[in-house]
Every structure is written in structure tokens, then in C-alpha cells.
């Protein structure tokens, strides 16, 4: 008879060896670095062009996003419809994303179509024309979308907490408003395009079942372009809000409040960062975290509560985020601080620490499963100017960090006085 009270033996995930498979590196004739992994079971490919063209580089709010978004809305040879139809005809998905430091153009397609599709990407980064009519539609629709989002307490809270933690002029704290969107001109976009796409600093990441002549294909399409320039990075200073506690009444019919509690935190190269990832996981970074256990699974105040270290290239922040019933918002906030206090005062017991470590190791093992996952690990390292040693060091910290170190860390950072607190109802 099977005894179901006895758990099957497990191999502690901390005993797993995790190896980050290397990626192939090459440079185009113009020096543009290419990182790729040629592998996979499906006949698909992903290629990601990363430009140093995030909102960090704009002089006017919203121009970086507008340029990135509209880059496929017209070239000297084709209009917006023809461009989209071309990609879609080949069953390809072209996406654009604009971040703080970088902006990307990413293609997902069947590998056999790369040859037909890459020339159009060349066209987008060399001869886009940003028609006035396309800009106007973009502005109009962005403003409409914003008007809907501004009624959502979580959206408003996310904007505000970043403003408190970085300042409204910092790229990490800057938000778009109706006035900013309206103020963008075609000339702003054309100038930004010239300075950050025509003459760019670009890196290329790719994965999938790539064609045999992949390197030649890339070099032929992109090796002669001005994509490897030195771009001067403007250094922004963090300006913390003067006031720590904020309450915003946004929607008079609101039945829930969005709570954000955050503090500034150094960048990922800081010696505390890797340990903080472990402490954060335990505190609010996974389903079994202290915050979830207490505030969702014990008290039922919320559908979910999370804490995280913001993923920025420069300085970061440590933030707790949740939406809770209107009548239990204050109780939720109190519990968030109580959980900090516990971590400052009581060492984490051995079992809970092992559980978090095992969980994180399992997660890391899954993160490097398959070429698409592996290339995104490499991309993250490379864009942060790190190498595999950083990856292995993070793994080592997960395995080795002690309860005593985490107690010290909690006493250094999980200090209520350092946190900015926001409630939006």
C-alpha cells in the first residue's frame, strides 16, 4: 500500500549544475556585433535589432516612442499598409518596443523567409519617412488610449511611483501626457530617426533554425550601414520626491486601491544586488512569498501582491505592488511593513531559505531552456555590459547566501523610513 504521507525523494535544485550555453559572436563589416544561437526543433527564427534609441536620448517627451512606433508606417518606397502586408504575407510578426536606454525592432518568422524579410528591415532603418498623416493618427489614438488608462488605478499608480522614485524629468520617471503627445512634430521624429536609427549604435541578437548563409545575409543587408557609432549617453540624476506618503483619489466609483511602496536601490553591479534578488523572492517575489502568504493566502485582502527590483540599466528601485479592496488598503499597507520588520528582526529559518533557493534554481534552469530563452539571457547580460561570470555568480549567490547575510540586508534596505508610499483609489 502506497504511503501518500511520504514525499518522494528530491534532488535539491541547489545541487544542479547550471550551464549557460554559449552564443556565437561575430561582427558585421561595419563592426556591428551579432550574437546568435543556431538551434531549435521548429523551423522558426527570431532576430532582434537593438538600438540605443530609448527615451533616455530624447529632448522632448514621447519622441523616442513615436519614432520607434512609426518606423514601419511609410518609407520612400512603400506606404504603411504595404509594409505591414509584406511582413504579414510571409506570416512574419514585426514588433517594436521602446525602453529607457534601448529601442528594438524584432522580427519573428519562419526561418526560410529571412532572406525576403531582411531587406525590408533595412528599408525601415534607412529610408522611413514618417508621413504627417501617420503621426496624427498615432497621436490621436495614443491620447484616446491614455484617457482610458488614466481611469485605472494601477496604471496611474505605476506612473506616479516612478515619478516619486526618479523624478519627473528622469527617463525612468517620465510619463506621457496628452500635452506631450500633442506637442510631437514630424520634424522631431525625423531628427531622432536620423540621429539614432540612420546613424545608430545597434546590436543584433538572433535565435532559431537559421539558414546556412545567415552571417553573409546579415552582412549584405546591414554591414554597410552607419550602425556602429558612438552615442553620447546623457547622465540623468535621480531626484526623489520630497514627500514620502501620497494618496490620490482618481476614481470616485473605485472599489479597489492600487498600492505601491518603493525605495531607491542601486544598479545590478552593486555587491548587494544579487543577494537582494534572493531576499526579494522570499519577501514578495513568488507565489510562496511572505507577502502572498500573509496578505493573500491568510487574509484574502488581494488577488495578488508582488515585490520586485526594477530592471533598469542604471539605478534601480525596490517596489511592492498590489491592488487591494478599498476598505482593506490601510491594513494591507500595515502588513507590508510588518513583513519587513519580521525580516529585519528574525533570521529566516533553514527550511524556508532552502525552499526559496531550490525554487530559484529551478526557475533558472527553466530560463535557459532552448535557444530563444538562452539568447534572451545573453541579451540581458550584454546590454548590461556583463558577461557569463555575472550569470554564474548570481547562481553561486543563490546557492551560498546565508540567513545571516539576508538579515543584514533586510536591516540595510527594508527600512520603512526609506520607502515612498502611494495609494490610488
Amino acid at each position, binding site marked *: 500500500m*502506497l504511503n*501518500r*504521507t511520504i*514525499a*518522494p*525523494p*528530491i*534532488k535539491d*535544485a541547489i545541487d*544542479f549544475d547550471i550551464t549557460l550555453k554559449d552564443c556565437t559572436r561575430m561582427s558585421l563589416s561595419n563592426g556591428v556585433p551579432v550574437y546568435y544561437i543556431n538551434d*531549435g*526543433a*521548429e523551423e*522558426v527564427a527570431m532576430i532582434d535589432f537593438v538600438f540605443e534609441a530609448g527615451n533616455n536620448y530624447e529632448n522632448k517627451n514621447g519622441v523616442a516612442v513615436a519614432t520607434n512606433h512609426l518606423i514601419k508606417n511609410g518609407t520612400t518606397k512603400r506606404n*504603411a*499598409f504595404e509594409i*505591414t*502586408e509584406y511582413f*504579414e*504575407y510571409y*506570416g512574419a*510578426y514585426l514588433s517594436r518596443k521602446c525602453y529607457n536606454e534601448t529601442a528594438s525592432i524584432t522580427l519573428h*518568422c*519562419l526561418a526560410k523567409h529571412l532572406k525576403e524579410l531582411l531587406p525590408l528591415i533595412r528599408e525601415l532603418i534607412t529610408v522611413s519617412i514618417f508621413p504627417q498623416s501617420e503621426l496624427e*493618427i498615432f497621436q*490621436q*489614438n495614443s491620447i*484616446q*488610449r491614455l*484617457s*482610458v488608462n488614466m*481611469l485605472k488605478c494601477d496604471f*496611474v499608480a505605476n506612473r*506616479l511611483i516612478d515619478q516619486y522614485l526618479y523624478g*519627473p524629468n528622469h527617463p525612468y520617471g517620465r510619463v506621457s*501626457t*496628452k500635452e506631450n503627445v500633442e506637442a510631437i512634430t514630424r520634424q522631431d521624429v525625423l531628427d531622432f530617426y536620423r540621429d539614432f536609427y540612420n546613424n545608430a549604435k545597434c546590436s543584433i541578437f538572433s535565435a532559431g533554425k537559421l539558414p546556412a548563409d545567415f552571417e553573409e545575409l546579415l552582412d549584405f543587408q546591414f554591414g554597410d550601414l552607419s550602425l556602429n557609432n558612438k552615442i553620447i549617453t546623457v547622465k540623468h540624476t535621480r531626484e526623489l*520626491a*520630497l514627500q514620502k506618503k*501620497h494618496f490620490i483619489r*482618481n476614481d470616485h*466609483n*473605485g*472599489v*479597489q486601491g492600487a498600492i505601491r511602496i518603493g525605495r531607491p536601490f542601486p544598479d545590478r553591479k552593486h555587491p548587494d544586488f544579487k543577494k537582494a534578488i534572493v531576499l526579494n523572492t522570499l519577501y514578495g517575489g513568488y*507565489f510562496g512569498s511572505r507577502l502572498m502568504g500573509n496578505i*493573500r*493566502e491568510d487574509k*484574502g*485582502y*488581494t*488577488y495578488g501582491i508582488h515585490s520586485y527590483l526594477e530592471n533598469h540599466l542604471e539605478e534601480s528601485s525596490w517596489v511592492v505592488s498590489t491592488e487591494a479592496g478599498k476598505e482593506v488598503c490601510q491594513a494591507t499597507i500595515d502588513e507590508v511593513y510588518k513583513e519587513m520588520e519580521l525580516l529585519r528582526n528574525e533570521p529566516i529559518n533553514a527550511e524556508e531559505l532552502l*525552499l*526559496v533557493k*531550490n*525554487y530559484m534554481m*529551478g*526557475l533558472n*534552469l527553466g530560463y535557459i531552456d*532552448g535557444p530563444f530563452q538562452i539568447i534572451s539571457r545573453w541579451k540581458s547580460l550584454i546590454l548590461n555590459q556583463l558577461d557569463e561570470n555575472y550569470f554564474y555568480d548570481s547562481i553561486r549567490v543563490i546557492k551560498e547566501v546565508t540567513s545571516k547575510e539576508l538579515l543584514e540586508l533586510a536591516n540595510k534596505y527594508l527600512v520603512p523610513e526609506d520607502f515612498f508610499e502611494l495609494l490610488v483609489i
Partner: protein
Amino acid sequence: MINFERFTLNNGLRVIVHEDKSTPMAVVDVMYDVGARDEDEEHTGFAHLFEHLMFGGSLHIESYDEPLQMAGGENNAYTTNDLTNYYCQLPAENIETAFWLESDRMCSLAFNENSLEVQRKVVSEEFKEQYINKPYGDVWHKLRELSYKEHPYKWMTIGKKLSHIENAKLQDVKDFFFKHYTPSNAILTVAGNVTVDQIKQLAEKWFGDIPAGKKYDRKIKQEPEQKEPRMMEVTESVPLDALYKCWHIASRLDKRYYVTEIISEILAGGASSRLFQSLVKEQQLFSSIECSHMGSIDPGLLYIDGKLLKGVSLEVAENAVIVELEKMKTELISKVELEKIKNKTESMLAFEDISLMNRANSLANYELLGDANLMNTELESYQAVTREEIMEECKRIFVDTNCSTLYYRSTIKETVMDADVQLRYP
């Protein structure tokens, strides 16, 4: 081509194994053939509430999550109108932990009053977060009630109203469990770095002695044909007028389902789709427009959801949509247009199959529909669709008497944004 093997235990549990030696991980997916459509109209939201309770401890194991996390795994679950799915991923070497946990909660839950009390609150907050505290959050409650008069698709998975969840009793929970959570009503799918023999042995060991239970016989009232156009108007404090239209479509296993899927792609599947190009770009009547369908097993709904540009009337916008639909009924779409959608479908399916979790989930889904191997013939079904079939299906779907329309009118005349917020910044 996704390889798999299939076998059935004596108690009726169906098991599917998909070997993939390229990964260090394993996925264990347990799908139960029960969803919101199996609920009683006075106790809606139950299948989903139940999904939450499945994590509150089982017969011999106090908590589901901790042992799994200790084994380096993570998990999640979801409920739809048709089914409930529980899945976890963990290092393949620790796979037995997942068998231990999943089989114990198939034996029986702990039925703990406190867990019910807490999860009632959690689900109430989920209800508020997703459906009350968001602009347009109640749209699907309204559209389902308008479109379905008999079929249980008339309520959402989260439930018809908060009170149904708040009033759930422990006895209801027990009854629900023993009715639906039986081996013969479940499919166990295992994918990853495993072997078929190993899974056969583990399945027999952990699930083999669970009593088969009584086979649940689904008796659902099917929706009678809609005979008249239906119209509803609401006025809410949202910033933009919105238009919603939905039409009854064929069931998941009908060949016409694939035709409908392609129709929704042609209409609004991307930036070169018809509705986007005509109504957002050229005529500038909408700031966004989408067309999709519920993807349900019983006959579902195809719907269009558009936010109007300020200054455009709902009547004008609706007419413009109808003009586009009329074109679909009277003119064959071009060969290129059809080829485009088929190519997109091919690559979309290929990308979906990259993730081990997706593969396991798809196999389970198709097995629930009747045959896991549908996963490998899916693309052919799309490829077989002709232009003529598309026109025929449009003629059948896009008729007034098959349509429900919702005008969602905005009371906010001036878009006020940010003033409040900026003032409060010190």
C-alpha cells in the same frame, strides 16, 4: 510534428507522454473536463473558485505549493467556461514530486473551512480587479447575457455576481469535487525529459489506485437559434464610446470553426487587416478595433470590439462596420489575402510549439476535444479553407437576426487627464 504516446489507466485516467530530450525540465499538466458551463445558474463562479481551493491542501498533504517549490518547480492553473487546467514545471529529475502532489489532490481535498473563507475573499478581489474596477470591465457580463438565453455560456467564468462566490458553502465544494474531479474526467499530460516507460510506472504507482468514481454525464441546454436582432445600450463614466457586436458561430469541432478563425483574422488580425485599415487608418472612425472569437467548445461567439474616436457617433461607426461585413458576404476575398492568413497561421502555430508548457497544454486541450493528434492536423484544417467557404460562412454569420449589439456610451465629455495627478506632485 509533435510525437506522443497515449494510454489509459483502469480507473479511466487518460495519460499522454511527450518526450523531449533537449530540455532539463518536465511539465505535468492535469486537465479536468469541467468548466463554468457545468455550473448551476444559482451557483456560478464555482468551477473557478474551486480551482483556488485546489491549492489549500489535499488528503495527505498540507500544502501543494511548498513541496513543489522545494523541488525547484512552479505552477499555475486556469479555468475557462469549458475546462480547468492545472500545470507545473520542474526539473525532470524531480518529476515524482508532481505525481505525488497531483495524485493526492485527485484522491481528495482536505476541505478546510478556513481555506474556503480566504479564497472567497481572494476571488472577490479578483472579481473587482478584473471586472468592476476597470473601465468597460462589465462588457462581457452584458454581452454574454445578451447573446445567450439558455446555454451556460451566458455567465462568465468568474461568476454572474459576487454574491454567488460569497455564499459558497463547504458542502457545495465537496459535492462539486466528487462529481467532477474523478480520474475518468481528467487527462494527465507529461512532457519533457522523461520516458514513456518511466511515466507508465509513475502513473500506475500514484494514480492507479484512485477510485474511478461515478462518470459525470454532461447535460447542457444548447442555445436555440437566435431569431431577432438584439440591442442594448448603457451609459457609463468611461472616456470613450465603444461599440460591441457579436454573432453566434459554429462549435469547436465543426469544420466551419476554422473558417471562422480565418474570418476574424481577415477582419482584424493585424495592421494590414480590413477593419483596421479601413476604419482606423482610412476613415478614422475608431482609435482601436478588434475582432476575435471565444474559442469555446460549444457554439461560441465571434465579436467585434471598437473604441470610437471622439466626435464620431455610434450609429455612423456601426454602419461603417456593417459596410465592411457586407463586402465579405458579396465579394470573394483575394487569393493573396487568404494566403497571408494561412502563412500567419503556420508561423503562429510553429512559434507556439517552442515552449514545452504550450506543447503539453495543447496536447491536453486536443485530447479533451477527443484526440490529442488534432494538434498535428490542425494546420491542414486551416490550409484546406477556401475563399468560397469564407464567403458562405460570412453570409451565414453576419445576419441581423444572429447579432447582438451593445452601445457603450461615455458620459465623460471632456477628456480630463493628469491635472489632479500633477498638482499632487510636490
